[in-house]
């Protein structure tokens, strides 16, 4: 019987290691897998490379990892928030590497990683510092930048419901990067509000099909 459900963080994080690259869903706090990130903190992993829209916000998850200096690099579109001083401090002190990617390009690069696209041309960032060193090509009169896929060893996702095949639904705008990151990581680990029986999710309302999901764990908001 296929059963992707796990019941503790040790099982959820199997294979995690120092230096791992982790995609972390969430836009601000919505959809952020705070408890999974904090379980990584508790287990002492370090030198992490994080791919996430923001380099933390508030007091949870990524911010805790940043404060404990567990993160070597963040690939993101917008690192700081009004309430995340630690990111600025670490960056100013040269203790945190940041790679800034336009939000749509970041999302599209992850989709490319998940969908077998070897590279794609986008108008976003043409003639800006973020296109420096990248190939530019004129297609039908417009300049486009060549962007390559973005993949990761792990994706951490927060979803609303999961069944034992790993099918997922999300809550409103907490959907965010979840469906795309699930495609783009070797191992996709999902914390969900609740497990449901196989067949409870209408086939037309599955947002992330289980094919992209490796492990699901029920996590109570803490």
């Amino acid at each position: 019987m296929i059963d992707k459900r796990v019941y503790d963080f040790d099982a959820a994080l199997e294979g995690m290691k120092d230096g791992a690259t982790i995609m972390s869903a969430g836009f601000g706090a919505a959809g952020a897998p705070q408890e999974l990130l904090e379980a990584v903190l508790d287990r002492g992993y370090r030198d992490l490379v994080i791919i996430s829209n923001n380099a933390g916000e508030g007091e949870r998850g990524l911010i805790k990892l940043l404060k404990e200096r567990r993160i070597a690099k963040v690939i993101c579109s917008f690192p700081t928030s009004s309430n995340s001083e630690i990111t600025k401090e670490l960056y100013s002190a040269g203790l945190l590497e940041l790679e800034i990617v336009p939000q749509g390009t970041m999302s599209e690069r992850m989709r490319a990683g998940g969908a077998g696209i070897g590279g794609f041309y986008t108008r976003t960032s043409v003639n800006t510092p973020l296109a420096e060193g990248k190939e530019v090509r004129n297609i039908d009169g417009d300049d486009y930048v060549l962007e390559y896929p973005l993949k990761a060893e792990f994706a951490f996702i927060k979803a609303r419901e999961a069944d034992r095949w790993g099918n997922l639904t999300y809550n409103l705008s907490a959907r965010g990067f979840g469906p795309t990151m699930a495609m783009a990581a070797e191992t996709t680990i999902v914390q969900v509000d609740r497990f449901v029986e196989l067949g409870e999710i209408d086939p037309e309302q599955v947002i992330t099909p289980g094919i992209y999901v490796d492990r699901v764990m029920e996590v109570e908001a803490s």
Partner: protein
Amino acid sequence: MAKLNRKQIAWRVAQDIPEGAYVNLGIGAPEMVANYLPDDREVIIHSENGLLGMGPTPTPGEEDPDLINAGKKPVTLLDGGSISHHTDSFAMIRGGHIDICVLGAFQVAQNGDLANWATLDNSRPPGVGGAMDLAVGAKDVFVITDHCTRDGQPKLLNQCSYPLTGTAVVTRVYSDHALIDVRDNSFIVREIADGISSDQLSDMTGTALTFADDCTVLKTPEL
């Protein structure tokens, strides 16, 4: 000399959003445009984090931490609203399906170049968010900005000195002093705030202005 306040600029932008438009409002001052859309005008507001048909701020106590806008503030969805994931949401932006986006700016050049994501101060972490995607993707890019910086430097220029967000993307500037179209490598003044002369406006601008033949007074209510 009666320059506009932020609310008045937002009000003026709102008057130019046509019925049925799909509109993305940037974080900060552009968000205020939603407050001044005429009641009888149906406009569909997009938020980059996957909302289409965004509604007003929820009443206190009704906030859902999973229903936020691009500025990470609680919002609502209108009837007819829909949710999409990030990649699909940016496909709307990058694919040219957003009619108008309204953004802030550090600098705008007369050819429509926009600089609104990074200064030359390297001590601050840079952050671009969805600005570059919106700049190239939206059919019209409206900019809300003060005409000058706090220390009196012009923000409308011959050429931007800050790192660019996009080239030749801005189609109209709503400043606290004027409404200016960006067309054919020129700033064309369409409306000018009451009590401001052409010369005064030119003095505040870092490049030559063209005044439209039918240039009128930029009128807004008290707000």
